[in-house]
């Protein structure tokens, strides 16, 4: 299948969508390159990053488009026409064929860029306030509708957007109902609603928020150099100056940076990016500087650095620290020492590899805890944000801070100090089928049991597990509708996923079974936490699985 063609091939009569043999039949000497979707996506993303020169809010649009919000930006380029000209010139200079359009709304710009034409211009510009006129002549395909809706519109004789827009909205729903007799009533109404919705988005009556590539920085500081910097010392000094400026800017509004991005623009047009996060906002850049000093040697300066840009992606209100009276030095309290340590570790090992433990109110052993990134946890505290909740009430929120429920985190029965994830199946020999094991084989080693505690039965949480189908549905809805929080928020959710109820319900289609937990000690003194999954006397008609044994934890 041909995915894309160049100008010469188009002139020869080839089109995207042809099969390769047809294309060869049309032109035997056609040259083909296998399609690399990942490379395409990556290139488009790079282009979106480059588009930052026209506005901070921009992102990839589908598989073949880019959008950028130029509200309040166009005058810097001398108006919208010259901005579009500049854009077209630069991209065609890089060997790219571009169809650019600017309009009042995202929907209109999307339609004009793909279906609009303007005589003697390489771009399409809808004058402000005249969006409806500009798009009136475009085909209805530009409305971003599904195939069914398009077919229906065409069957009704509505081929241009102007024709559709001319129909009163109330009448449209009625006409659709009459026309699409084959479809169900709800489907017909949904079709009509979709058309009205898209039209409203086109004209700007309904706002259409778009997720930008990255959150706009709170403050940024840029240093330009006449001659490119090459020496690493020079770059370090430049970064230090930029950070100092950024910290001053933020301190004026009473904020301190939590996440800082450093962009080093090389002379050949490429950009090196470094991200650094800290746990506590600080008014001075010394700590940030130290973190960047660790990472800067990894940067390849290439032909030299033209521009140094630091931007604060996430900030938190500054804490007022009492300077010590005697020597004028600020006291380094231990929480600061711990936070600095967490920053240094996260900086090198990765934020998700430095974690702390939190407990979740749940009886089910693997759901009763979560690990969260320590830096995220500290940042939440600095921003006075409530800790993330998964399921059940959080009792402790990690790293030294705990509510008054300090004693509640003691389990009623013995719990292991190390939990195996996931539980490992073991072969068990028991004197009684419902009794404790007499010996078991785990990791190809026989263990003879000397002592066994009485069983502790833990039943699945019916309030989360019983309607497994419902949970699964809700879980999938959540993943569709949630807008990924750029930065740490998304990662936190991802970390919580293995323990979350919806993920478990989705991964195991069969309902969870009650477990009998035993604390076993073998003849050498090793102590284990094993469970039997399922019961012997309680087998449902639909659940024919025999009970199984698993090793779930080791006592330290």
């Amino acid at each position, binding site marked *: 299948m041909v995915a894309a063609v160049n100008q010469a091939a188009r002139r020869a009569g080839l089109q995207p969508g042809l099969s390769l043999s047809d294309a060869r039949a049309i032109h035997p000497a056609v040259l083909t390159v296998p399609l690399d979707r990942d490379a395409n996506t990556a290139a488009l993303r790079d282009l979106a990053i480059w588009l930052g020169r026209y506005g901070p809010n921009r992102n990839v649009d589908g598989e073949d488009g880019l959008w950028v919000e130029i509200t309040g930006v166009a005058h810097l380029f001398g108006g919208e026409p010259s901005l579009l000209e500049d854009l077209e010139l630069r991209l065609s200079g890089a060997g790219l064929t571009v169809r650019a359009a600017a309009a009042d709304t995202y929907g209109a710009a999307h339609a004009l860029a793909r279906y609009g034409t303007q005589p003697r211009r390489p771009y399409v510009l809808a004058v402000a306030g005249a969006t409806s006129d500009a798009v009136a002549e475009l085909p209805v395909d530009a409305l971003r509708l599904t195939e069914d809706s398009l077919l229906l519109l065409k069957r009704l004789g509505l081929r241009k957007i102007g024709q559709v827009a001319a129909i009163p909205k109330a009448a449209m729903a009625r006409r659709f109902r009459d026309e699409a007799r084959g479809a169900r009533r709800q489907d017909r109404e949904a079709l009509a609603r979709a058309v009205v919705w898209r039209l409203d988005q086109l004209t700007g009556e309904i706002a259409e928020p778009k997720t930008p590539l990255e959150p706009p920085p709170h403050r940024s500081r840029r240093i330009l150099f006449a001659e490119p910097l090459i020496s690493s010392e020079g770059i370090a000094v430049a970064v230090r100056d930029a950070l100092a400026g950024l910290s001053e800017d933020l301190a004026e509004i009473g904020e301190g940076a939590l996440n800082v991005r450093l962009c080093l623009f090389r002379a050949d047009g490429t950009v090196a990016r470094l991200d650094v996060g800290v746990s506590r906002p600080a008014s001075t850049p010394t700590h940030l500087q130290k973190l960047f000093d660790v990472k800067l040697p990894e940067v390849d300066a290439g032909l030299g650095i033209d521009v140094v840009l630091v931007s604060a992606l996430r900030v938190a209100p500054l804490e007022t620290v009492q300077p010590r009276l005697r020597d004028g030095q600020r006291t380094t309290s231990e929480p600061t020492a711990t936070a600095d340590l967490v920053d240094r570790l996260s900086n090198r090992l990765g934020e998700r590899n430095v974690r702390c*433990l939190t407990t979740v109110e749940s009886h089910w052993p693997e759901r009763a805890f979560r690990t969260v990134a320590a830096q995220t946890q500290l940042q939440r505290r600095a921003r006075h944000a409530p800790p993330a909740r998964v399921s059940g009430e959080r009792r402790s929120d990690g790293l030294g801070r705990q509510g008054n429920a300090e004693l509640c985190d003691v389990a009623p029965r013995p719990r292991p100090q190390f939990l195996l994830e996931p539980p490992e199946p073991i072969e068990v020999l028991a004197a009684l089928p419902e009794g404790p094991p007499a010996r078991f084989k785990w990791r190809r080693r026989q263990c003879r049991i000397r002592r066994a505690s009485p069983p502790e039965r833990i039943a699945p949480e019916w309030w989360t597990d019983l309607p497994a189908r419902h949970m699964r549905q809700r879980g999938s809805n959540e993943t569709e509708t949630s807008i990924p929080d750029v930065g740490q928020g998304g990662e936190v959710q991802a970390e919580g996923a293995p323990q979350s109820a919806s993920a478990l319900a989705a991964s195991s289609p069969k309902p969870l079974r009650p477990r009998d937990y035993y604390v076993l000690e073998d003849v050498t003194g090793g102590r284990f936490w094993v469970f039997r999954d399922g019961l012997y006397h309680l087998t449902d008609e639909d659940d024919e699985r025999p009970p199984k044994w698993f090793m779930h934890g080791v006592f330290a």
Partner: protein
Amino acid sequence: MSATSRPQMTSPPQVCSHAKLREADAEPLGMPRVKAKRARRQKRAETIAKLRCLVERIEGCRPDGFGTWATDPSAETATRQAERPEAPCWRLGTAMLDDRLGARGIEVGGVHEIRPSSDAMAQGWAGAASAAAGFALALCARHREAVDDRVARLPVAFCQTEAVRRELGQVYPWGLASYALRPCDLLLPEARRDDDVLWAAEECLRSGGVRCLIVRVRDVDLTPARRLALAAAESGTPCLLLTDARAPVVAATATRWCVAPAPCAPDRYDADAPGARRFSVVLDRFRGRPFAAQPDAFALEWCDETFCFRVVAGLRDRAPSPHLATGEVVTGAFRQSAHRQRWRATAA
């Protein structure tokens, strides 16, 4: 202070010279060989005394391990004691053991290696490794009592590689209460390689932002071990090093403990259920007592209510059924030797 002025010199020089004069008068001829031998012996004693003093000055305590010098309060020791007059020591919580550990207890700013004993490793890696981890957690709980409130609030770092976590399990917050830890007390840095784990450990030690550090690595080379020791001494943060029994022993450690799980006594209320956790521990190395002829072996029981160790007595705590009692409860070497002495006395 020069080494020669120490009081443990075998013979004062004045006496020596007098004796020489008298010898020269009384024995003009005939016994040169004896004299040479005596002089050699005396020279050797002097050298040993000098070396001992040197070792003492480096280590800062008496060479035989029983605390600081009682007869000779040297200037250094005096100042060190003056600095920390009432500082609580890191002790194990039972008088018999703490006497063995000396007046200052376990060194707070030092690296302590805890390795599973090779016998236990042969019988099951997971059991032995987690017993070693348990002993480390217990030491960490004891350390909490040796620090002030300010430090006690700091988290405990537990560094290990990702592979080890998968193999031996994730730290489970609900089980930490038996080792005096709350879930929020732990910081868990994790890396892919041992090098990164050691780097993270060193960062933790140098930062002063953790109360105690537990590191689980396969083995530690000479240089990283020395770096860890220096960092620990600098910040006064203890580093508990969990290593593999198959790896060579780590250099520059303050103590080295060989730990194996030991079969426990039955639960107080249920004869079939396991009772308090027991470890059989060998104190392999203890800096400050470098001339120990034979390592100390203890059978210890961890009390998860008082967070103290208890020495398991061979007679009192033996298992109820005879076929299980043989050789399973390790009797403390101290008790053994005392017993042997008493037996010798009665035999004579």
